């Protein structure tokens, strides 16, 4: 390799010639295999077994038992998981739609500003994204407390949620998660959209200006269509992140009794929380069930990604 000029191999081609390249890749890929690939494959395989923390006699292949149990049996794990899916189906579209709408509006407006004002707004809007999610949860737990919280007490005065314990009441509980997630995530999506808008060549706007197009028309017919690839990335990413919701509801409804996590009647229970509960539950096949729930989440994420790829191909 010392005098291996590109294109002029001094030694016969072979993997040995590339040994140094593979050596450079080794540290990353060793950890990649150990901490990503193997757990990922193991998770899929173990979802078909009665893997458990308590089982001393070994783990047995049980086929689709876990899947059937979780989806149809009506036992505690099953009932909780199905409830968590229902909550997820309400939570994900709500938070993604409202969150991205706010981000897009802000990005469109902020890009009307230039120079220091632009930098100031962009920098400030990103602050909640910089704050850790556990902290955002803490702040809003305080704000949405009906007695000590600024937001809940103000809303109560205008008749919303008067006397309600937000994190324990159906509907309100999911709203809490949506509010916190939006407060945290808007900055992230806003910055990506804003960068996308700035990538659009000013020539288009100049031409439109000459043709007498209004600001609104320019947004509608130039910015939005040219922003579509970025919007698609942001939508996909937002869906995938929202499916993994864990920190917010887990912190708000923690309890020493694992079956109480998720609030009364599981008003704030989401699939990842249920997965982690199964990890610690010590139930027969607890780990197997947790893996099985992981596989179902994996299918949802793969579905969203596949949808994005198909859309992309159609466009090209």
């Amino acid at each position: 390799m010392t005098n291996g000029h590109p294109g002029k191999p001094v030694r016969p081609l072979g993997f040995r010639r590339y040994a140094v390249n593979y050596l450079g890749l080794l540290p990353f890929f060793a950890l990649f295999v150990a901490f990503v690939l193997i757990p990922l494959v193991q998770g899929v395989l173990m979802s078909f077994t009665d893997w458990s923390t308590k089982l001393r006699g070994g783990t047995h292949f049980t086929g689709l038992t876990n899947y059937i149990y979780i989806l149809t049996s009506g036992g505690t794990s099953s009932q909780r998981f199905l409830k968590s899916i229902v909550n997820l189906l309400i939570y994900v579209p709500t938070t993604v739609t409202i969150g991205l709408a706010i981000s897009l509006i802000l990005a469109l407006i902020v890009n009307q500003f230039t120079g220091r004002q632009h930098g100031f707004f962009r920098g400030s809007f990103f602050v909640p994204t910089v704050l850790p999610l556990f902290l955002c949860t803490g702040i809003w737990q305080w704000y949405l407390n009906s007695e000590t919280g600024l937001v809940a007490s103000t809303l109560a005065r205008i008749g919303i949620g008067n006397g309600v314990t937000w994190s324990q009441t159906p509907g309100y509980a999911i709203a809490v998660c949506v509010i916190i997630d939006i407060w945290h995530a808007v900055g992230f999506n806003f910055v990506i959209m804003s960068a996308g808008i700035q990538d659009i060549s000013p020539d288009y706007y100049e031409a439109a200006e000459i043709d007498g197009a209004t600001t609104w028309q320019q947004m509608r017919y130039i910015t939005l269509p040219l922003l579509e690839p970025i919007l698609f990335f942001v939508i996909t990413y937002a869906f995938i992140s929202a499916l993994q919701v864990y920190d917010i509801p887990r912190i708000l409804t923690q309890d020493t009794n694992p079956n109480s996590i998720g609030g009364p009647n599981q008003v704030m229970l989401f699939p990842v929380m249920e997965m982690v509960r199964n990890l610690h539950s010590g139930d027969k096949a607890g780990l197997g069930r947790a893996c099985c729930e992981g596989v179902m989440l994996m299918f949802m994420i793969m579905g969203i990604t596949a949808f994005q790829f198909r859309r992309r191909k159609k466009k090209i």
Partner: protein
Amino acid sequence: MYAIMILWLLVCLFPLWNLVSTTFSRDSDDLTRTFLPNDFGNGLGKLSYALTALNLIHATADTLGYTVVTILGMIVICSLVAYEFTFYKFPLKGFLYGAILGSMMFPLVLYVIPLYRFVVTLGISDTLLGVAAPLMVSPLSVFILMQFLEDMPLSFVESARIDGAGHFRIFASIVFPLLRNGLITATVLMFLNVWGAYLWPSLATGASIQPMSVTIANMLSPMFYTDPRVKIGAMLLSAIPPLTIYLFFQRYVINGIAMSGVKG
């Protein structure tokens, strides 16, 4: 338009100010409307209570510990991968690159259960390395570093090779120093992520390591009574490290995020 901007500005920044104003206020004040600090002595008392009795000092040290280990590991392994992928051709390159790309589709929550069992089996759970090792494997960092390397002329590497520098010598003495901005970007993004991480640290730690996220989360639990001003003060303290990093490296953070979207 200004109205919308100012409104959202308030939504973003007012809560932070409110953390400060409420921490440094009299115990008798109404928590819903304490918009100006009026009792610094009381606030300092709450903060010191949070640092000592709630053990935020310990939590800060531990969280900083595994965050630094993660970042150091990430810098070494990810910059090497970025170097190989950007400057060299070798068999299976496309396959390996695709594997990293594809793995971004599989977030940690999908395999966190087997991963946790694996780390326990290795005997490194509840150690700094155990928390950090899985987090170092960061496809996002690889992509950010590759973006920065792509702007670097190939001639630097070629002329060094003609001068007789070895493969890793070129990496260490030419590529790595020029990668400065990329490394800063990847580092600050990693810092913010790991500092705020809750799920993995909460699983991978036990009695000896106390993550900040877990400490704050336990404090927020309605099951135990904590003085509300201590809670608010503790939240204020936990916001300081990420906010400081953001203040100093704002450009890198914003560009890094923008980059991950535009190229994604």
